[in-house]
């Protein structure tokens, strides 16, 4: 499994992925590469297929054709849970909370390798108590870092939308991911907090070397932080480059003006 | 993929392994079943019709409400009981039943009141629910009155079964499922609620039978519907199919109506009694009025639904709502009205189906429930939510059941008690081999 050397330059490669729903072509041959350790953005107008692409990469949908290669492993058609264990973690555009559970439990649930999660061992506390405590420490640390520790005891359905986004991120970080797929991590959050979130993501990226692919609409904020940008339109990648190149790219300007 | 195939093979082997256990030679079964094939096909059409009428309602509500309605069978029972009571008790001993007349008037006037409220509120842009509720209530009243004063015929019964079931179905949506949906109930909760509705309706009907037994000394559970049926018998003679009105043969001395279908075309004739008794004692096929009525009804309904879906604005709106209700609402479609209509139509078809089931077997409060489980098998085989899938599945399952019963009877007549297991086994087999049902086959071709 560990074939990092085979493709050390790119952590994620999406090769000619196609997906259609009935008569609608959602992805029309998408090609995209994310450099190892980079923070890459994926932008485009609504309905351009960004979220569908995320769902294909994360295993929610199977592509009709094409390949997804993650960290040297072909993960095309893998189920989401297997992809998670491989080290690729995603968040959702509309946060999906375990809504009858508290924030703290939400974050704890995402931990990997807890022996208390088996039917056979869970009745015997002795077996899993030590690891559970470790996981709890880690959850508390992450939540403190993300500034959601004060809502830890709240029901996850009873917190603000911005906090839900952070809970999702915290869940993702519990597994020490190699790469994060973030679907609008700062949607519905005021600009100050959005800057804070992106600053935090950048730190994570720098310090822990977590690669990221981010969907975001607020380009003004986004472009201050990312290394590379892909632009999607009608199920295709129509432009790519550094944020600076993208801003000056007439195709991109056209798409965004045409949308408005 | 391999796993699935292995499992299905295993099941097949299990089924095959069973056959030698009965120690009956395949040939013997064959020789008993083969002569019955024309009859099996005929019964398949009729049983398929009845399955279709119930299952299509599950499919229709599924398209807009997206959950399996467990109360559907009991909605059908309500219609069947309404028709049964109208047919048997609207006129008792030549005297018009006062209670029935009262109910008829209440329902007519109630319907009119609801419609007039709708008329007043109409301009403010709401109250379509009242329209959907008012029309069937009004119609129920009129048909009940018609049944009381003129006499209930089959069309009358079909209308009354359809309208009462439609009202029940719509009310169950308005009073239970809709409020639950606005409270963000989960799919499982909606299903459980529909079971609650099912229990309530079923045991209310049980209560009604008890009431009738205790206070009117009239048994209305496990009764035959009491509708006189004409039965027909057919023989294959020298390549010609002769169908004889067998009921007439019991009453008429001469001139028994008959139809000859052969190479020379279709000819209406009549047979004399001598000719009739010259026919072999066992007819090749036999059927009743119900076969004809149910087939005509299904044809009318299929054509009607086709027109509705393909030609009208409502049909387009329906499909839009089925695809994506939020988008449909954004496009200015009156989603509520479409959903109301879906529940009405599903209920009406269930009522008609329930009526035919009651005529075919007996009327009892659990009738719809027993049918519902078969209808679920049909709906799943059809691919849950697919119209033509459901249509095809109805007849496939009916055929499996009829053929299976013939085979079981050939092995040992006692085994026919297992006939209920046939659709259920098909259902489980579908889940193991092809859970997407028939609809997926069509899609793959397209």
């Amino acid at each position, binding site marked *: 499994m560990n074939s990092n050397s085979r493709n050390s330059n790119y952590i994620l490669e999406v090769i000619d992925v196609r997906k259609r729903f009935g008569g609608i072509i959602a992805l029309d041959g998408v090609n995209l590469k994310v450099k190892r350790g980079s923070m890459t953005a994926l932008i485009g107008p609504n309905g351009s297929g960004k979220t569908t692409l995320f769902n294909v990469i994360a295993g929610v949908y199977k592509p009709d054709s094409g390949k997804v290669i993650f960290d040297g492993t072909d993960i095309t058609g893998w189920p989401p849970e297997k992809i998670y264990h491989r080290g690729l973690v995603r968040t959702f555009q509309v946060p999906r909370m375990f809504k009858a559970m508290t924030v703290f439990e939400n974050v704890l649930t995402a931990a990997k390798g807890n022996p208390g999660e088996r039917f056979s061992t869970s009745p015997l506390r002795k077996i899993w108590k030590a690891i559970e405590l470790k996981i*709890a420490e880690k959850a508390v640390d992450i939540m403190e870092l993300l500034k959601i520790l004060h809502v830890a005891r709240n029901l996850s359905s009873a917190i603000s939308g911005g906090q839900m986004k952070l809970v999702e991120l915290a869940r993702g970080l519990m597994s020490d991911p190699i790469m994060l797929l973030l679907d609008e991590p700062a949607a519905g959050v005021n600009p100050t907090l959005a800057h804070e979130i992106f600053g935090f993501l950048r730190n994570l990226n720098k310090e822990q070397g977590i690669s990221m692919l981010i969907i975001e609409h607020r380009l003004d904020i986004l472009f201050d932080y990312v290394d590379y940008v892909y632009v999607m339109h009608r199920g295709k990648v129509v432009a790519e480059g550094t944020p600076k190149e993208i801003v000056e790219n007439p195709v991109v300007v056209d798409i965004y003006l045409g949308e408005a | 993929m391999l796993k699935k195939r292995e499992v299905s093979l295993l099941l097949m082997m299990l089924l095959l392994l069973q056959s030698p256990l009965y120690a009956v030679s395949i040939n013997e079964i064959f020789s008993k079943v083969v002569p019955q094939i024309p009859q099996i096909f005929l019964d398949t059409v009729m049983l398929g019709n009845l399955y279709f009428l119930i299952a299509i309602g599950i499919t229709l509500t599924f398209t807009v409400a997206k959950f399996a309605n467990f109360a559907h069978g009991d909605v059908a029972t309500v219609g069947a009981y309404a028709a049964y009571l109208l047919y048997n008790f609207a006129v008792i001993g030549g005297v018009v039943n006062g209670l029935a007349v009262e109910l008829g008037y209440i329902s007519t006037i109630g319907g009119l009141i609801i419609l007039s409220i709708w008329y007043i509120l109409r301009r403010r842009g709401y109250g379509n629910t009242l329209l959907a509720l008012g029309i069937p209530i009004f119609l129920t009243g009129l048909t009940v009155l018609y049944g009381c004063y003129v006499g209930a015929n089959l069309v009358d019964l079909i209308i009354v079964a359809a309208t009462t079931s439609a009202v029940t179905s719509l009310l169950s949506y308005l009073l239970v499922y809709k409020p639950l949906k606005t409270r963000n109930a989960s799919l499982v909760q909606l*299903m459980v609620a529909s079971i*609650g509705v099912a229990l309530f309706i079923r045991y209310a009907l049980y209560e009604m039978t008890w009431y009738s037994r205790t206070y009117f000394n009239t048994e209305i559970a496990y009764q035959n519907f009491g509708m006189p049926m004409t039965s027909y018998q057919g023989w294959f003679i020298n390549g010609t199919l002769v169908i004889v009105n067998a009921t007439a043969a019991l009453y008429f001395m001469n001139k028994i109506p008959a139809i000859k279908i052969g190479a020379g075309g279709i000819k209406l004739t009549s047979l004399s009694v001598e000719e009739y008794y010259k026919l072999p004692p066992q007819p090749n096929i036999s059927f009743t009025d119900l076969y004809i009525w149910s087939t005509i009804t299904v044809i009318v309904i299929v054509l009607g639904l086709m027109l509705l879906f393909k030609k009208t604005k409502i049909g387009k709106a329906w499909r839009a709502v089925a695809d994506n209700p939020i988008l449909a609402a954004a496009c200015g479609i009156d989603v509520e009205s479409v959903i109301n209509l879906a529940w009405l139509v599903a209920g009406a078809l269930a009522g008609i189906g329930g009526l035919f089931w009651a005529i075919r077997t007996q009327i009892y409060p659990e009738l719809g429930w027993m049918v519902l489980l078969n209808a679920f098998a049909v709906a799943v085989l059809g691919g849950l939510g697919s119209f033509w899938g459901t249509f095809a599945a109805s007849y496939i399952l009916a055929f499996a059941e009829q053929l299976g019963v013939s085979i079981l009877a050939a092995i040992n007549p006692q085994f026919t008690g297992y006939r209920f297991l046939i659709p*259920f086994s098909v259902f489980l087999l579908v889940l193991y081999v092809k859970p997407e049902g028939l609809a997926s086959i069509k899609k793959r071709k397209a």
Partner: protein
Amino acid sequence: MDKVGLVLGIIVVAIIAVFAAINVSYALDLIFFIAFYAIASLSLNLEYGYTGLSNFGKVGFIAVGAYIAGVLSAAFNVPFPLCVLAAAVAAAAVGAFVGIPTVKLREDYLGMATIIIGEMIRILLRNTPTNSVWGGVFGLRGIKPPFAFIKDPLARQFAYVGLSVFLFGLVYWLIERWGNSPLGRVLKAIRDDELAAKSVGKFTYRYKLLSLTLGSAIAGIAGALYAFYFLYLNPDTFIPLITFMIWVMVIIGGMANNAGVVLGTAIVILINRITQIAKDYIKLPLEPNYFQAMLVGLLIILFLMFRPQGLVPEKPVNTPSWEVLEKAEEEGRAKPPGGEEQ
């Protein structure tokens, strides 16, 4: 347990105590019924309350357990503990058989499949040859009582009811332990949002299948207890209404709350018993059995609409992890940021 639960619990215990003071045998019978139904409703709580699975064929799994235990005892003189074990295994096998194709599909499929399996089992049992040990519509007879060596009938009943209560305690302990462990969190996560649970790496298919299988096994144990209590089984006692009685118990009590579910079970059974007694004194123009079933339907709807969390709402999963959070809070790490949120 919170206030509502506590008050209702005390009332339930008081009523049982009153029954015990009047007629010991009747009270024992009542306690057996509560224990039997509580095991069944706890198993449904594992499936529905924790995992969100819609098992509408619970009665079928109980019937499998009852008949397997009954046949083994009546025809083969198998001792009681082995019968119970066999009942659990057989019911689990049926559960797995239904679960394998259905739990990966939408919830509807499992609902329809289980309800159909439940009816299939009843029809199969009805159609078994009447001259065999299964008994067909005449029912299964000849189950050997486990405490036959006790001569006094009341003492024998007492012993058996005690054993049932003990088994109930075991099941309660087990499900409570499952629920208050990391496993409980995973199951609840699957119930709340299966896709999100998958996205945090939970193999949901396996969990759902295991939950259904183990839930069925527990239902099988309940069935075996039933068989050895009545020593006679009839296929027509295993009607779908029983399943929905069990559903009402779980919905009234509160899903994913075992104490609540047991309370809900006791309440439903007591209401049942009290109406049975009351019908001899109060004449209503209604058939009480049918009316009760209507009430079951109505209660399902009303609770789902107005109190979906049940009488005793569910509680956070209790594991040692909360101590860690408490310590962090004491250290003052849980300060809200700058007051701009909320």
